[in-house]
C-alpha cells in the first residue's frame, strides 16, 4: 500500500512537470501566433485582435 502510494506520487509529480511544460510551450506558441508572428497573412488575419489586445502592431 505504502509502496504503491509512493510510486503513484512520484509518477504524478513527473507527469505534472511534463504537463506543465507542454502546456506552457503550447500556450506561448499560440500567443506568439496570434499576437506576434511577423508573417503578413497571419498579421492581417489577427489584425483587429492584435489592436484590441494591445499587441504591438505594424
Amino acid at each position, binding site marked *: 500500500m505504502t509502496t504503491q502510494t509512493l510510486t503513484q506520487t512520484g509518477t504524478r509529480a513527473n507527469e*505534472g512537470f511534463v504537463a506543465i511544460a507542454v*502546456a506552457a510551450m503550447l500556450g506561448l506558441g499560440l500567443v506568439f501566433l496570434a499576437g506576434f508572428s511577423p508573417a503578413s497573412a497571419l498579421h*492581417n488575419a489577427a489584425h483587429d485582435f492584435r489592436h484590441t489586445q*494591445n499587441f504591438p502592431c505594424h
Partner: protein
Amino acid sequence: MLIRLLSAALAAGFLAAVLVTGLELALTSPLIIAAERYETQATPGSAAAVAPMPDRLPIVLAHAGHDHDSKAAPEWQPGAGLPRMLFTGLATLVGGIGYALLLGAVMLATGREPSPERGLAFAVAGFLAVALAPALGLPPELPGSEAAPLVARQVWWLMTAAATAMGIYLIAIRRVPITILGGLVLIVAPHLAGAPEVAATPSELPAGLAAQFAARSLAIAFVFWAVIGLAFGRAWQTFGPKTAAGARG
C-alpha cells in the same frame, strides 16, 4: 493531468473567445475601421489614396507608405465584413486558448489547485502583466498612430510583461520582504527604462476616438482574462476525477 490541463484550457479559451469576440466586434472593430478610413484619407499622394477605395478594408494598403516594394504582390488579407469578423474571432480563440494554457501552467507550477476563485486571482495577475503594465508605456493604439519601430515596441512589451509577471510572483507568492522589494523593482524597472516613443505627430484621427479605443481595449482585455480564469478553474474541477474532487480540492 496533461489531458485535464489541455481540456480545461480549451474550454476556458473557447468560452472567453466567444464572449470577447462579441465585445471586440461591437466595441473596438468599428473604431479600427473608422481609423483606417481617416488614415487612408490623410495620406494624399500615397498608393492608398490613389487606389480606388476597394470593397475590402485597407489593413495593408493603409500602411503601404512604409514598404513600396509590396505593390507588386498584394498580400493576403481577409475580405471586408464577415470574413474579417471570422478571422478576428479565430485569432481571439487562438489567443484565448494560449492565455488559458499559460494560466493553467503557472497555477500548477506554483502548486495552486485551480478553482474559479484562484483562477480569477491569477487572471487578474495576467491582466496586470500582459495588458495593464505594457499599456502604461505603449497605450492601445488605433491603426495609423504608431511611432517607434515595431521590433522595439515588441521587445519592450515582452520585457515589461515578463518583468511584471515575475514581480507579481515574487510579491504575491514568495511574499517575504526581500522578494517583495525585488518584485517592486522588477515591476517599476521597465517604466524607468522607458518605453519606445509614443506617436507625437499630428493626425487626422480625432483624439476622442483614440481615447475611447484605449479605454475599451483595456476593458475588453480585463473581461478576457477574468473569463479565462473563472472558466479555467471551473473546467479544471469539472474534468477532474470524480473520486478525488473532495480530497484534492
